[in-house]
């Protein structure tokens, strides 16, 4: 009897010890750290203004933008000492919907991060997974029914130079299969590092997304020749352009 009680208390003690270690490792501080990523849309130096503002492309052709929507997926924060913190999901960003331009990662482990990576688009696995909900719900009108797969980026507008009817500009870029793979991996270095530690407040990474970069570098898009991309034809030309549309504005503390 006494023997049994001793045994029981021994195992109970071990269990508590193991449990406390486990909890400790998962939650080093009491605070759960959040990192927000704020996307700021620009046309060159100017903040993007849909519908009304007139911009010029690389070839001096004027145009207006009426729609900008795109997917950001699989965000990695790269640790300075190696390894990374990954959020394996997709976010749909729509210029018309302010709240979609802010992504919150939580909880982010305490560490020093030197850069981040993400893809513009949706990875091939999630292009083949069947019916999905949330950001990947086809009801968001970012899905091709006749050739299964997500539209990674929609840029629409008008230009007097456009050859399309109604002077439309329409760039719907998607496709996850070679040789028309339009998924692009974006790398953003943090020159001043991103420290997630015990200090209060959340860190915010502000990124610039420049729509002029979608239309140039390496290929300057001539609206009189290419005013519409809605399938694999010329899709990778635009994808190669949007590869470098993102840059770091700043990292700051919120609140």
């Amino acid at each position, binding site marked *: 009897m006494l023997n049994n009680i001793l045994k029981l208390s021994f195992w109970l003690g071990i269990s508590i010890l193991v449990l406390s270690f486990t909890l400790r490792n998962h939650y080093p501080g009491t605070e759960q750290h959040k990192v927000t990523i704020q996307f700021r849309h620009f046309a060159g130096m100017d903040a993007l203004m849909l519908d009304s503002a007139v911009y010029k492309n690389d070839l001096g052709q004027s145009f207006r933008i009426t729609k900008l929507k795109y997917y950001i997926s699989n965000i990695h924060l790269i640790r300075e000492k190696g390894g990374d913190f990954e959020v394996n999901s997709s976010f749909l960003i729509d210029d018309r919907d302010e709240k979609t331009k802010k992504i919150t990662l939580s909880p982010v482990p305490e560490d020093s991060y030197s850069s981040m990576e993400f893809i513009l688009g949706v990875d091939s696995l999630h292009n083949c997974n069947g*019916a999905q909900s949330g950001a990947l*719900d086809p009801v968001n009108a970012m899905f091709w029914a006749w*050739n299964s797969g997500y539209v990674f980026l929609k840029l629409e507008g008008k230009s007097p130079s456009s050859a399309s009817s109604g002077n439309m500009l329409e760039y719907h870029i998607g496709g996850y299969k070679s040789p028309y793979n339009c998924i692009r991996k974006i790398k953003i270095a943090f020159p001043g590092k991103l420290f997630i530690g015990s200090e209060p407040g959340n860190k915010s990474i502000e990124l610039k997304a420049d729509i002029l970069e979608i239309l140039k570098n390496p290929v300057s898009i001539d609206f009189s020749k290419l005013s519409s991309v809605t399938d694999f034809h010329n899709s990778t030309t635009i994808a190669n352009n949007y590869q470098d549309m993102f840059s770091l504005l700043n990292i700051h503390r919120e609140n």
Partner: protein
Amino acid sequence: MDDNPYFRISAEDVKLKVPAGFPRPVYNFKTNRLTPEIFTLGRTLFYDKILSKDNSVSCGSCHQRIAAFAHIDHSLSHGIYAKIGTRNVPALQNLIWKDAYMWDGGVNNIELQPLSPITNPIEMDETLENVISKLKHDKKYVVLFQNAFHDTIIDSKRLLQSIAQFTGLMISGGSRYDRFQEGKDTFSVAEMNGLKIFRSKCENCHKEPLFTDNSYRNNGLKPDPSLKDEGRAKITGIEEDKYRFQVPGLRNIEMTYPYMHDGRFQKLRDVVNHYSNPENFDVGADRSLQKIGTLTEREKDELVAFLLTLTDKAFLYDRRFADPDFQ
């Protein structure tokens, strides 16, 4: 409809039964667990015109059970506003063994397949957003979704997965051919000879037991210039894929007339005549077609006799797939 016990779906009705000799299915319902309630929701949606813009066309309008869910006697698909499509309505059977759907293989998952006809301007011409909104405002569907998922959410994932349960269980593996393979039935001499011809000349693409290798091939038909249908190339952008179409399975072929991707042949005999006439093949014809050579009239008869053994009456009259509201 609900009160007719004949159409009621039981737990037994939604068990996935893989016919003897069939390979492992590509789609296994792992992330879409089969239940009588979800299957029933899928069946209701399949036969409901609510999926089309003006409530005039349902999936079942063009996919008729008695034709193994092809469209009897219609060479090209008929859609909304009496519009005519560019392709023959394919049979719906053994879909979970396919890795891609549509004649050009453009759809990569059975769950996503309905999006194509729903949103196609010459089929149902509806938006997914509208369909969901109509369902949310329909008392019948509020109840059906609640029964199926035990909460009040009505979304596209549930819509699509429920239809996938209904179409995914359309399995045909009970024909005379199947019973013959199991040693439970016998073939006539003509059928036996037909099977031999089939295995030496057709099997290369129409691989048993599903009677397709799921590949895309140019079957030698001269393209119909009025349809401008480049087939697989429209999906892949690859020049060699021009005029290639997915090899269809041949089960229940007796019922799925007319034949070929554009429905140009009314009779099985016409199909056999085409393959037996190499001089008439289009330039891009698949090389394996040359193996067929010219068949004698008798060989053609025997081949057709064999093809008729692929009719699966149990499947064609399966009550689970009937429209309970059909009068």
